[in-house]
């Protein structure tokens, strides 16, 4: 600790102010720490000054607290001391992505009859890199195998595929037999299993396989907000500052073949049977949700975790307000407590509106 040398925050430790407290989001070491708003103010207003200067500014009335703050910052390597304060610029918060669509969710149920391969070909033209395929009611092994074959035999922009499917007899045997086609499959989650088991990638398959007792009823399961989904990294943070942290550059196909931002959303943009994806991605109506940031969303805009958090525009506390807080978030930035959102009496009306079965939401 140097009391007479100016301090700087490391640029990849970014502060975010909340209603009661703030966070330091460490985008290099992927960590987040909560700090008092007083410390946020010191960091914002006095960066580049010496600790002794700062103590003087507060008329030496809070020396102990200031010492404690700076010891915390120094111990965690959030700050350094240098006379060269002017050569260290803040981090650029630019976010940019070389894809027109960078991720896609495709839902398939027992009645789905749309042409999935036709969708994949169009996603390639849009440079899509990540794909999530979800089966809720029944595992559509026939369609999944077609997808594996397509991805194995074609040059595709898709780099990773996640698959969700329900347990069926001999599912392990089936996965084993299809393994050699998993070149781009990164994650398979089998739900409704009689057992829990995680299998790490091995050999030449990079797929992580999870068998879980958990139940996923339908697309209504999506949209939960939890600390478990926090991501304090450069890409996610800068995307959140500039765009919607769930829907940006996302395009989804629901189980009926309708093109949507997300399968859980009401509004469709035509069927894949007669609509070209490339025509939808230039439709302002389709892309307008991409730019709804947490700074615009009610409650979220007061939350210290807003830029490391996910979002949900499908299920909102007020279904008619596009800037309403995600329904399935139990956190309050005003009390700093997490509660079970599904039993909150204030959310009952919205839960009924979306016909969410709260009891199937839990593991």
């Amino acid at each position, binding site marked *: 600790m140097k009391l007479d040398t100016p301090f700087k925050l490391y640029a990849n430790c970014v502060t975010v102010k909340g209603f009661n407290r703030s966070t330091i989001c460490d985008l290099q070491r992927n960590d987040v720490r909560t700090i008092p708003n007083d410390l946020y103010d010191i960091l914002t207003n006095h960066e580049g000054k010496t600790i002794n200067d700062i103590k003087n500014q507060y008329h030496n009335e809070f020396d102990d607290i200031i010492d404690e703050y700076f010891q915390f910052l120094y111990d965690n390597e959030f700050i350094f001391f240098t006379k060269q304060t002017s050569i260290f610029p803040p981090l*650029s918060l630019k976010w940019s992505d070389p894809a027109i669509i960078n991720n896609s969710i495709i839902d398939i149920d027992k009645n789905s009859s749309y042409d999935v391969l036709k969708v994949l070909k169009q996603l390639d033209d849009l440079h899509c890199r990540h794909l999530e395929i979800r089966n809720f009611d029944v595992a559509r092994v026939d369609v999944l195998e077609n997808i594996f074959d397509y991805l194995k035999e074609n040059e595709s922009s898709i780099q990773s595929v996640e698959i969700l499917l329900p347990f069926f007899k001999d599912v392990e045997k089936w996965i084993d037999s299809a393994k050699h086609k998993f070149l781009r499959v990164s994650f398979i989650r089998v739900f409704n299993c009689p057992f829990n088991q995680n299998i790490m990638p091995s050999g030449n398959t990079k797929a992580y396989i999870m068998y879980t007792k958990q139940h996923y009823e339908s697309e209504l399961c999506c949209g939960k907000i939890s600390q478990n989904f926090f991501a304090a990294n450069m890409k996610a943070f800068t995307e959140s500052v500039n765009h919607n942290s769930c829907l940006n550059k996302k395009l989804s196909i629901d189980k009926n073949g309708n093109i949507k931002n997300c399968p859980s959303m009401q509004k469709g943009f035509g069927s894949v049977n007669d609509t070209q994806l490339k025509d939808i991605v230039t439709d302002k109506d389709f892309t307008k949700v991409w730019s709804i940031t947490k700074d615009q969303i009610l409650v979220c805009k007061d939350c210290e975790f807003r830029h490391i958090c996910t979002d949900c525009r499908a299920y909102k506390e007020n279904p008619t307000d596009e800037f309403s807080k995600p329904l399935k978030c139990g956190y309050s930035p005003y009390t700093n407590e997490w509660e079970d959102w599904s039993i909150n009496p204030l959310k009952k009306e919205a839960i009924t509106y979306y016909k969410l079965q709260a009891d199937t939401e839990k593991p």
Partner: protein
Amino acid sequence: MILLISSKYDVSTNIVIQWLNYYGIVFLRLHTEEFSMLNYFSVSNKSISLTINDINLEAITGIWHRRGRLRNLPNSLNDLGKVTTYLKKEEDSLIKSIETSLRTTKKYIGSYISEIENYKLDHLIAAKECNLNIPDSIVTTSKKGLLDFHSKYDQIISKDLRYAINIKTDDISINSTGTFKVTDELISELDDHFAPIYAQEYIEKEFEIRIFFIEDNLFSMGIFSQQDEQTRVDYRNYNDEIPNRCVPINLPKNIKEQLLDFTRKVKLNTGSIDMIYSIDEHYVFLEVNPMGQFDWLSKNCNYYIEEAIAKEFMEL
């Protein structure tokens, strides 16, 4: 069309390709691990022409030479002892002539020739001529010379003049990461005369600086080693070592100008420069790597260097 010469395992190349696709720039990627069939490199009074893997490179408007070099020697000729050594020398001159030829007519970023002829002393002298600070350095074959040099500085280091050593035979394996401290004990074990040793004053640093450059664009990053042992408090359970802090730097204007002067003087249009900022407040040039890695720099500083590289080829 743009020609990319790179390792098939290079992550940065993959990201640049995503940006080339985004900007609609057509490219041909050749892997440095694989045999590229040279149909012909023909030179006549009328024209110079080059066809590789059945593709006439007439259509190529620009080259990004990211890593390594093409392989024109069939794999079947790789195991013939001294004959292979001879053929590889021949191949090497061919590869260099092709680069030189392409360089005269096309935009050619990166260079195998510069990578292979990365003479650190040349660069040190060039840096000095551009008014950059350099560490006092010596190359000597005499124990007395080394001792005299050592006596002038608190500490000295030694490094390689070109490449880090990496020798593997059936009997021995010698390799090093490059720089190491030269101690009195180390010197006392030496004979009176030895192969040329490159030694340098050790300069205590406040932070290190890594600068990736492409044409006139400089992307600079400060690297902070651990503040001290005390700060390695174990409040988080990292599997890996806690990475050094890496943050963007906006170098002073005069240093930027001196660095750009330097890149022109040594005729490099891309590369990575290592510098330090010393505790006595000087920027000191250490060395340049013509084909250095920049992925960590791009990510830690949110610089989008890969996009900048793709854009270099936009209006060709």
